[in-house]
């Protein structure tokens, strides 16, 4: 039971040319109290639209938004107990940092003494004490981002909405802020709804991830579940890298599933959700695959995949091996380079690729 419920949310934009865009299509998400929820999806999938609908800057065309069992649809933005950190920060350029942070309290009629105290605390919290007198234009991007954060947090909203707040920062700054944001969320105990198109960021920060594509919710789950058990082909491709094989379930014994691809390749997976004859896709993450040493047999009844190394990329912790496995397909293997047999891996070498059936995740073939 979520405390903020998005129920079958629908939003259609009319473009000036007269066509219409379905930005949200039947999206249902139960947001839990104090969770860090990430909306993840490619550009144009409707993340900002969903955030705007929650904040109230856009009206839903269908569905509902429920907070503490009351509908928010007729509540104007300035009366909703949410605050937003905008993608471009939207700091008021004609006010100082302190005035920006105090604005919400001033509007709410908080006394000057109280305002100053809380604004000071909020700036402290984001590590910007001493910057209160500056103008937003006199701050770096990262500092502006933190002012925007302080300006919202100081009001202790029930939900903090963040629209790609880290996208304008350089990599180093972004990684620092990811950790800071996560810590901050724990410290203040406020529900965060965080928008990003960066899957690594989503995996690193979230309690749960809602994956969106073309206005539809693809999967809503914890980062590990989303990564290990992608709900469909889109999620498998968008989150992390996948080796994917389409095929038909050939036999089942217990939870061990053997599927056969169109090329006659036999592969193993673990699942209880399918029956013989079902059309499925097998997802194997690169780190689930290993290059078997010459004398290794691998998992007893999992047929190894025969291939020829095309290219190897050493990335420190692992060796990324691109191997041709016939029928024009390439498998990506993330091979721990301390493992046995690593010295045999060189472009042109014939190799056998092994995996455990437990790591093979099956997803249903998208019905046309």
């Amino acid at each position, binding site marked *: 039971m979520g405390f903020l419920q998005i129920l079958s949310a629908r939003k259609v934009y009319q473009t000036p040319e007269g066509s219409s865009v379905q930005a949200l299509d039947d999206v249902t998400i139960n947001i839990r109290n104090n969770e860090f929820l990430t909306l993840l999806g490619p550009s144009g999938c409707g993340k900002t639209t969903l955030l705007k609908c929650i*904040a*109230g*800057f856009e009206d839903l065309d269908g569905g509902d938004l429920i907070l503490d069992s009351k509908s928010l649809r007729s509540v*104007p*933005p*300035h*009366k909703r107990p*949410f*605050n*937003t950190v*905008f993608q*471009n920060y*939207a*700091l*008021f*350029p*004609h006010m100082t940092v302190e005035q920006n942070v105090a*604005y*919400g309290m001033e*509007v*709410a009629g908080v006394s000057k003494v109280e305002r100053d105290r809380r604004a000071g605390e909020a700036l402290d919290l984001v590590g910007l004490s001493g910057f209160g007198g500056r103008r937003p*234009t006199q701050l770096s991007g990262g500092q502006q981002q933190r002012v925007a954060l302080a*300006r*919202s947090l100081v*009001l202790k909203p029930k939900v903090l909405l963040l629209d790609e707040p880290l996208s304008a920062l350089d990599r180093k700054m972004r990684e620092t802020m990811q950790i800071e944001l996560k810590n901050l969320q724990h410290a203040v105990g406020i529900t965060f709804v965080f928008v990003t198109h960066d899957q690594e960021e989503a995996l690193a920060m979230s309690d749960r991830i809602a994956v969106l594509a073309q206005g539809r919710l693809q999967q809503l789950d914890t980062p590990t579940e989303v990564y290990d058990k992608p709900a469909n082909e889109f999620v498998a491709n968008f989150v992390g890298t996948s080796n994917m094989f389409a095929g038909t379930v050939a036999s089942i014994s217990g939870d061990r599933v053997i599927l056969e691809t169109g090329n006659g390749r036999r592969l193993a997976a673990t699942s209880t959700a399918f029956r013989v004859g079902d059309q499925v896709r097998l997802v194997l993450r690169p780190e689930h695959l290993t290059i078997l040493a010459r004398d290794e047999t691998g998992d007893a009844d999992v047929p190894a995949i025969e291939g020829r190394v095309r290219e190897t990329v050493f990335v420190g912790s692992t060796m990324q091996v691109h191997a041709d496995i016939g029928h024009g397909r390439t498998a990506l293997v993330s091979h721990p380079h301390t493992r046995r047999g690593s010295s045999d891996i060189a472009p042109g070498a014939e190799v056998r690729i092994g995996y455990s059936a437990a790591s093979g995740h099956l997803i249903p073939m998208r019905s046309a």
Partner: protein
Amino acid sequence: MKNKRQMLWSALLKGYGVLFLVFLYLPLGLIVAFSFNANPINVAEWTGFTLDWYATIFQGASVEGNFDAAFTESPERIFDVIRTSFVVALSAASAATVIGTATALALARHKFFGKRFYQALLLLPMLVPDIVLGIALLIFFVGVGIELGLMTIIIGHVTFLSSYVFVVVSARLAGMDTTLEQASADLGAGPLTTFRRVTLPQIMPGVVGGFLLAFIISLDDVVITYFIAGVGSQTLPLFILAMMRRGLRPQITALAVLILLFSLIVASIGLILRNRKP
């Protein structure tokens, strides 16, 4: 070879630039120069330096000097029309600023049926020839039965000045980040507070610029004012026009230079305000 050609071009361009400036500013320079010309009959024939013409504006015919008192207006009369002009310009520009700004906001922030048409309609008063607008206003006032005078001048000016303010403020609004207003609402501010604390400060340079532009245009409008002024009230430009009927007398040149000076000051304030960062 190529270098020579470039040099020739550059020289031509410079020459053209100088010519253009001369063309633009020579008449203004001349009127400033001849406002100090002692020749009381022919303004354009230099006979010596004098400040008499400026003196007559402030002291009238009581000034000792070689001028024809019959062609000299009294300071009372001059200041009377200047006051009329300022009253008109201040009230018309103020009203136009409110109307123009409100209209610009409505058109920039709201969607409604016929918006494009309305936008085009707003630009019309700037495109319609003054003489047509003057006659139209006259017909309107006479038809409705409003007596011509100060009030009709002000109303008439407001009609077309609103368009100018609208254009200036719209340009400013177009450059404004709309997420600022969303941020304000997001932080709990109602529409009025958002307007007062966020929108207005952001568009202020445009509003002030629009006001100053309207003020200057009102101050120097002749054609439209001519039709709707009636007999009782006269603005400065109309007054000068009337003076001209009796010939180009030196006092007019001095008056013109003073107006020029004033316009320059107002324009400079406008430019300074506009270039100030929001």
